[in-house]
């Protein structure tokens, strides 16, 4: 018995020593030294300590690549084109990249280590992305499962953005969640007040960030966010617009319509907003007020499953059915879609069938 115990302790001790030797060896022998990250053909050049991930190295130098999962290689937001120096594609990257992306040297930057000099390409607008410390001014209920957050920026105290863009809000570590995570939310406020942003957030059952927002976040709390991101915005054309959204897909349109109202952008527009029951509908009075003010704007809210005997006097049916009924020739129009992938895909089908050209359809898929 004593012999067995002694043997066990000996094996454990030897294993611990070997592990320690390996750790020290990795630190001393596998030192990558200082590596250079060349961004956009010399537009920015960073000197970083080698060995870290590309994402972490960029963030340490205040270059924020979108990332929702805190570098765990699960969200696939942090794609970066690496022209040189990335090393072979890792097994955790492959499932998150299409064949075309692999062929174009796109990498998952949180899984790609900087072990030598690298050359990368990132969209120019990411140079404008900053991290913000902010304070929650108000939290209000829009529906039973959607909240409106009004957030005042503290440091920096202004955020310049284009109506339609989004930020990433950080949910800190809490409860059983050991690490902060970021989640993307479209800004619902107009760009005119650059000191404050509004976010429309819908509760995701079991969601890490939305559970924190709904159960823990309080008015007066400080939060961290970064942005602005995204290409969803009004085009430069004068084409008549069809807007289609559901649920928290309302957010960018609430920003855009108020921006249009403030700036006198009188582009003809019909906004189709779909919800299931009356309790899921929100901002109806606010949009009706804008509709009353401007003859170029038409608001069409629709319920797909109003309760029996409901006093709902708006359109009824799936929002895609309502669009199909009410939109005629679409050849000279543009489509703007925001919501779940299922809604977007169905809406694209409908408006393409109406003649809206594919290159005139813009969308922000919540995925």
């Amino acid at each position, binding site marked *: 018995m004593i012999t067995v115990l002694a043997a066990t302790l000996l094996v454990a001790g030897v294993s611990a020593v070997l592990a320690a030797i390996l750790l020290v060896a990795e630190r001393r022998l596998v030192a990558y030294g200082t590596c250079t990250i060349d961004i956009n053909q010399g537009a920015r050049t960073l000197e970083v300590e080698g060995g870290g991930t590309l994402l972490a190295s960029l963030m340490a130098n205040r270059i924020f690549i979108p990332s929702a999962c805190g570098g765990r*290689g699960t*969200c696939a937001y942090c794609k970066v084109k690496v022209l040189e120096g990335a090393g072979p594609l890792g097994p*955790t990257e492959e499932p998150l990249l299409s064949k075309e992306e692999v062929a174009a040297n796109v990498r998952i930057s949180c899984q790609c280590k900087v072990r030598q000099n690298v050359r990368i390409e990132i969209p120019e607008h990411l140079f404008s992305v900053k991290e913000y410390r902010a304070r929650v001014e108000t939290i209000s209920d829009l529906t039973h499962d959607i909240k409106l957050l009004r957030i005042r920026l503290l440091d920096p105290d202004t955020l310049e953005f284009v109506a339609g863009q989004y930020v990433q809000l950080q949910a800190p570590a809490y409860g*059983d969640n050991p690490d902060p995570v970021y989640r993307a939310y479209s800004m619902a406020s107009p760009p005119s007040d650059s000191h404050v942003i509004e976010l429309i957030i819908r509760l*995701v059952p079991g969601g890490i960030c939305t559970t924190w927002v709904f159960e823990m976040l309080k008015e007066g709390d400080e939060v961290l966010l970064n942005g602005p991101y995204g290409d969803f915005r009004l085009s430069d054309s004068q084409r008549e617009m069809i807007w289609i959204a559901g649920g928290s897909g309302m957010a960018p349109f609430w920003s855009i319509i108020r921006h249009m109202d403030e700036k006198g952008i009188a582009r003809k527009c019909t906004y189709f907003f779909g919800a299931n029951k009356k309790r899921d509908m929100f901002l109806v009075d606010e949009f009706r007020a804008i509709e009353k003010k401007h003859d170029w704007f038409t608001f069409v809210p629709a319920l797909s499953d109003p309760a029996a005997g409901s006093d709902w006097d708006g359109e009824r049916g799936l929002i895609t059915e309502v669009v199909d009924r009410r939109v005629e020739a679409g050849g000279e129009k543009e489509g703007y879609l925001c919501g779940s992938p*299922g809604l977007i895909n169905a809406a694209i089908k409908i408006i393409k069938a109406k003649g809206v050209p594919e290159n005139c359809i813009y969308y922000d898929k919540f995925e």
Partner: protein
Amino acid sequence: MKRTPDEERVLERMAPGVLSRDGFLGADPRPLNEILATDQAEVDGLGVTHAAIAARLRAVLLAARDAFGRSVPVGEGLSAVYHEAMGRIPSPWPGEGVFPKGEIELADQRSGHTICYTPLSVHLIEAHGFYEGRGSRYRLEPSEICRMLGLGEASA
């Protein structure tokens, strides 16, 4: 029994707060291998396969998904609603891609019972025979699903 590095990684990703708030194992005290083996035995005893169960759940999901939150009939006495949500969630088994968030409520008017599952649930059942741990929001009992969906010997 000692776990392999791959198994350790899967278990890390199943823990609360890593991929979702509550994780995938609920309050189940059993090791993952035992959860899988027990459910495998139950499915074998029902005379069905994980693939058949997953296929049926997927068919329900697709029918409900196209209704954008409206309840749809999906079989005798059955109705389903798909509540879509923003974002994607990866499989706890690394390298298997990401899946839409959101959940499907499948209600059986005959028994008054309702189950909840996700697009990821369908993949986990099909690829791994994993029905989640007991106490997890999306735990599916094989015998219960088979009874609801009219599969195998549970439907007899």
